[in-house]
């Protein structure tokens, strides 16, 4: 591992703990895509940019594991079609399992079998280190393009000197709130502490229940999957309970973490619907966007979606940093996706061209404008149109980024994450938080032994 591991580690060490502004540059009305209420994907409002300097790849057939839901899925599909049109290659867009943990398992089995059935893969930013041995080195081919991206992001995708993935977009958790409802119930500002959120959510929920029986105070991602790791990491960190691992030692069994879990367990069935323990991002967004929740924890993509024409909450919501316990920091889990190419691909040249296209400044700009995805190229972030499309960046600057422990856990990250969210989920379903945390520690130790 050596030096590169060192740099990778220092990336997350530097990213984590820094405020958000380290990752983003200045930014203010969202454009975006129509949300279709039917069964089709949302419409992509703008034509995707053409492939610059397109080379013919006729005969190449690429399988692309792409985003599976919402506007992201529609954008990925549109981009694949555009690439196919401009280069003559065929791109089969496979919808990756919506649940990141299942996506991970799919990749792992495909790689284990050295399968040529996938060429281009969407990778969570915590995966490049794990899948590096199976990914193509893009340094020679896409190195110049990589230089345009945020250095921190490129370092994350560089494993042992090999550039194994290219940044697609970056992500972090934020608090969405209904500005109209806050005003209606006499709150001047969004909550800064969890107690405030709990109190506001309770008051708004009991008031709004008269109108809609399904109204919820606060929705988030409570299903047992990678998203819960991201959510719970924010809860625990903002309660002063640390960040799962210290080096290779689990540190979750502490009273602050137990307090955080107890709080969210109390939320279930009070200010959050019982079903929240089965929610993914889209479930939470559907409730919030349907006008049936006062608060939501979600990624930035929900901002653009919520402001589409026809959305019930268009112009009625805003974002803020997630709440924290008094004396601790507002925490936002660092997310985001990168794109990698399988070493077993039969058409590496076409695959490289495709990834080069997807990570180009033109496409980053397009994705920001259409879907609200945060670009990883600084120049694109600073583009006035983009800045106007992502006004929320300014509002969440105060939050502290928390990295998932992918560097400490290395190739075992996924196991650690599963152990963590399974335990957290158990606590949400009623297991005593202390006992759940103890089970998490035991399982993490087993994973890292």
């Amino acid at each position, binding site marked *: 591992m050596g030096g590169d591991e060192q740099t990778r580690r220092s990336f997350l060490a530097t990213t984590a703990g820094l405020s958000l502004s380290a990752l983003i540059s200045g930014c203010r009305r969202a454009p975006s895509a129509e949300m279709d209420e039917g069964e089709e994907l949302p419409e992509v409002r703008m034509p995707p940019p053409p492939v610059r300097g397109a080379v013919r790849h006729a005969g190449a057939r690429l399988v692309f594991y792409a985003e599976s839901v919402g506007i992201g899925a529609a954008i990925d599909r549109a981009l694949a079609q555009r690439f196919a049109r401009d280069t003559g290659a065929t791109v089969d867009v496979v919808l990756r399992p919506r649940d990141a943990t299942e996506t991970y398992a799919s990749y*792992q089995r495909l790689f284990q079998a050295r399968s040529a059935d996938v060429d281009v893969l969407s990778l969570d930013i915590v995966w490049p280190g794990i899948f590096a041995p199976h990914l193509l080195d893009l340094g020679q081919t896409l190195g110049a393009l990589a230089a345009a991206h945020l250095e921190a992001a490129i370092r994350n995708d560089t494993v042992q000197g090999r550039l194994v993935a290219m940044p697609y977009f970056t992500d972090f958790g934020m608090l969405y709130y209904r500005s109209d409802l806050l005003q209606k119930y006499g709150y001047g500002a969004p909550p800064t502490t969890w107690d405030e959120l709990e109190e506001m959510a309770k008051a708004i929920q009991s008031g709004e229940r008269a109108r809609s029986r399904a109204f919820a105070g606060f929705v988030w991602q409570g299903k047992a999957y990678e998203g819960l790791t991201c959510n719970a990491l924010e809860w625990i960190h903002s309660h002063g309970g640390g960040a799962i691992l210290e080096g290779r030692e689990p540190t979750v069994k502490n009273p602050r973490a137990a307090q955080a879990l107890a709080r969210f367990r109390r939320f279930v069935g009070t200010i959050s619907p019982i079903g929240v323990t*089965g929610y993914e991002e889209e479930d939470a967004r559907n409730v919030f966007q349907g006008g049936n929740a006062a608060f939501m924890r979600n990624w930035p993509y929900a901002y653009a979606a919520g402001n589409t024409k026809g959305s019930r909450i268009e112009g009625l919501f805003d974002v803020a940093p997630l709440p924290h316990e008094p004396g601790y920091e507002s925490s936002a889990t660092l997310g985001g996706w990168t794109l990698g190419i399988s070493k077993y691909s039969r058409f590496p040249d076409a695959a490289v061209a495709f990834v080069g296209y997807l990570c180009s400044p033109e496409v980053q700009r397009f994705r920001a404008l259409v879907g609200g995805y945060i670009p990883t190229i600084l120049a694109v972030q600073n583009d006035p149109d983009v800045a106007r499309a992502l006004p929320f960046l300014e509002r969440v600057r105060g939050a502290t980024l928390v990295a998932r422990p992918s560097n400490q856990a290395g190739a075992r990250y996924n196991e650690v994450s*599963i152990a963590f969210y399974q335990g957290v989920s158990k606590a949400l379903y009623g297991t005593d938080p202390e006992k759940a945390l103890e089970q998490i520690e*035991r399982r993490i130790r087993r994973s890292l032994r």
Partner: protein
Amino acid sequence: MSTTASEAEKQGEVAGIRARRRARVAWAFLSPALIVTAFVALYPLCDTLYLSLTNTRLASEEPPRFVGLSNYVELVHDGFFLDALLLTVLFAVITVMLELALGLGIALLLDARFKGRSAVRAAMLVPWAIPTAVSTQMWKWMYNDVYGVFNDVLVNRLGLVSEPIAFTADPRTSLAAAVLVDVWKTTPFVALLLLAGLQLIPRELYEAARVDGATRLQAFTQITLPLLRPALLVALVFRTLDALRVFDVFYVMFGSRPDMQTLATYAHEILVSISDVGYGSAVSTAIFLVIAVFIVIYVVLFRRREA
């Protein structure tokens, strides 16, 4: 005398040769099946046992090591495993009891002759023929907390409850929701099995009992139950083993929900999601052991009664 003896000997020899030849032919006919069985069942089974003593992982750089019984030691301390074990046994006991009781009732009902009996018997095959993965989805739709038919009936038509119940999400009703699907799916099998057993009971026995002035209840406990014992035992064993390895219903209904893991879904998670083949194999082997424990319990229980 001696000639006949030697002839007999010779005949015996001929018979021996013929028997040996026949045995060779038999083994030849058996060989494809034996090879396949060895390949897809016996070897993997032994391999699983062996793997459970190692720290093998898929896609791992380091070569697997022999770790003795440490996976099993870990198992005993693994809260997730122990909870899954408890849930699986609970599920097995509840469903098997319900299925036997309900199956017996249905079998008795169908033992009577009536018009349309064969149509009803055909209807019995409907739940059985539908893939469990699919029927679980159908039930999930009926259980839906907002649009499901159960909540519709309970809340809107009967007014029995004021708030819709999230059957599959609420921890208080989740197990019952899974039990109902399994009972619906497999009771017909139990009923058909018991019906076949019932139809083997000679009708004259009931006639005789009636002549002797026995009540229906007496006829049931004195004749039906004892004679149905073999079929009941078979149903009991089959259903128990099936219930202990339950996978589809829980996987489809609850996915990765940690408080609703059975032994099989937990093993699947460790083997497939985590690729910890060593530990996962230990979980798989544990399922085997649990099943073995149940078989021993049944053998002991029914031997004693037999004596």
